[in-house]
């Protein structure tokens, strides 16, 4: 078990290293940070001082090492656009994004998995067909359009729900939550549906496909031949085997939700990291972009680690080929 975790962490290291390298390369070579930070008027001395302060006169690997060391301590420099420390910018917006993502993920899982199981088991029923049509529409509707349509119907036409922002938030230390106020919860409904819908349909289709695959296996036929009840065959034998690959993909999808939040946050002007990121892309605010990139990578790697641990719990063989599981997503 211990060795297994270690090997998994070992596999995560190159991912993190690659990402920090890309982030550093962006930071160091894209655009000219000195010019951007100095603005219009500066003297050559100011310029030299800044170059030295930023360590840009150092050799490549020294700069990289310093960059990584700073990143570990949470120092990502100043935002070109806002002139404030990147860390505090991100910390302010992290709770909004995480709350939105978690609610959307829960929605996607709690609705998507049962729908997938149902459509896998009762392929011919009209409800299954309805779910499938729904899922195809869901996969074909871009997230931003779902958001716009929801706003049009529920905010503009019906006027039931707010169309932007987080509502009132309650602050605990550095964390702010919208889950404790009525307006915060109301504000969360449309964005979380928007963000969760696409993942929900993906999860449903995935669970269905896996379920059909598993139902064709010999061990399911044998379970039937042993006279086990439908319940035992479907929910004991079939579902458990379905879950093995589903956990992987779902894990990856949950990671994707955090990134997809970029779009949802733009549509709903949700004050999260995604909105910050998209504003930074427009402004070429490299420090914010590279910090965001590293943070997302860290989240994905952690999610992958959790997925691997779940795997360990579910599959005694631990040799299921994860590579064969393709992934689709925008």
């Amino acid at each position, binding site marked *: 078990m211990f060795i297994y975790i270690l090997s998994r962490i070992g596999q995560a290291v190159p991912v993190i290293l690659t990402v920090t390298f890309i982030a550093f390369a962006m930071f160091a070579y894209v655009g000219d940070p000195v010019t951007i930070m100095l603005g219009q008027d500066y003297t050559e001395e100011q310029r030299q001082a800044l170059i030295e302060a930023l360590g840009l006169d150092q050799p490549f690997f020294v700069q990289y090492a310093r960059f990584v060391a700073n990143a570990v301590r949470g120092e990502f420099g100043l935002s070109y656009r806002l002139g404030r420390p990147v860390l505090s910018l991100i910390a302010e917006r992290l709770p909004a994004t995480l709350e939105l993502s978690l609610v959307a993920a829960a929605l996607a899982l709690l609705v998507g998995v049962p729908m997938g199981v149902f459509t896998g088991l009762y392929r011919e029923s009209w409800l299954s067909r309805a779910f499938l049509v729904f899922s195809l529409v869901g996969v074909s509707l871009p997230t931003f359009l779902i958001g716009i349509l929801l706003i049009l119907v529920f905010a503009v036409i019906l006027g039931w729900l707010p169309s932007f922002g987080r509502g009132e938030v309650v602050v605990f230390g550095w964390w702010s939550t919208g889950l404790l106020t009525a307006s915060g919860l109301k504000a969360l409904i449309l964005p979380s549906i928007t963000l969760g819908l696409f993942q929900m349909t993906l999860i449903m289709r995935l669970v269905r496909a896996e379920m059909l695959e598993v139902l064709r296996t*010999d*061990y399911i*036929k*044998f379970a039937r*031949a*042993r*006279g086990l009840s439908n319940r*035992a065959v479907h929910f004991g034998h079939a579902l458990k085997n379905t879950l093995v690959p589903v956990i992987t993909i779902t894990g990856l999808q949950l990671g994707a939700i955090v990134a997809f939040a970029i779009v949802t946050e733009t549509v709903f002007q949700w004050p999260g990291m995604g909105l910050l990121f998209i504003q930074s892309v427009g402004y070429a605010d490299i420090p914010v972009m590279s910090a965001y990139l590293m943070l997302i990578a860290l989240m994905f790697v952690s999610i992958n680690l959790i997925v691997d641990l779940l795997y360990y719990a579910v599959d*005694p*063989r631990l040799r299921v080929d994860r590579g064969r599981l393709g992934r689709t997503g925008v």
Partner: protein
Amino acid sequence: MPLLEVQELRVEFPTRRGVLTALDGVSFAIEAGEVLGVVGESGAGKSLTGAAVIGLLEPPGRVAGGQILLDGRRIDGLPYEQMRRIRGREIGAIFQDPLTTLNPLYTVGQQLAETMLTHLPVNPAEARRRAIRWLEDVGIPGAAQRIDAYPHEFSGGMRQRVVIALALCAEPRLVIADEPTTALDVSIQAQIITLLKGLCREHGTAIMLITHDMGVIAETADRVAVMYAGRIAEIGPVRDVIKHARHPYTVGLMGSIPSLSARVERLAQIDGAMPRLAAIPPGCAFHPRCGHAFARCKSERPELMDAGGSSRAACWLHAADSASAMVAGAPREARPGDARPGDARPGAARQGVADDAR
């Protein structure tokens, strides 16, 4: 009353090019404790017959005619829940590939206990005790420890032993063993067959042994049914069928088995291939490949008929009104030197005739 009786079973597969008849007029019976071998080429309908009996035909396959009786009670077309109670409890099943038959995510103990808890009035502790005893009975060393092992921790042969335990643990009266040794190493095939037969004799369980291996049938079965193109070509006591095959197809099948006792220059072979389901010829399905075929074989389909001894064969050579044709030697002259019915092994012809006379 036989334990299992199959009458005029017909299985169809609707396809877009029309309905394919995969089994047509299959009739046989299995007595309690008896071992019935079912042989034939792949595609002859052996496995399909087994699947129909246990009620697990894969859709769109369906029983389209005939009856299946267990203890005289009709079991085809039973509601799913009633049939489920029969599966495992009355009729067990063993599949071909032990590597895929066991659920990889459950220990063998869990799978055994689950089966017994479904069918027998036992509590979990008792089920576990019995599971250990079953593993011992099927020859798993260290059963008390191995019961908590997962299938992937067993070798192929050991897994098939576990599958046998699973098939027998609810004490069914009939086991359908579909090619139980095909996927195994040759060296352990005999062990598995011996184990299966021994355990079934002990528990008085009948076996429907589906295989394409005549050797296994000869060793194990009491009676044998030979299938060809979705029909039974010949059925009878295993000694009769092997020594004095009555159907030209069986003769060919026997001729293609190497024998240690008789020296043969060349193994006999049957020309041509079994027809596809969509193109089964009229009359006797075997006639295009048969050296004895005559006019009637091309137009009229033979049903199983008494063919001497206790065997029954679906072949016009044995029809009372065709006897003259036999005597006249017409079919024989069709291809001189060919193996003849009752002439399974070269040199045994005369004895065969003598047996027929008895």
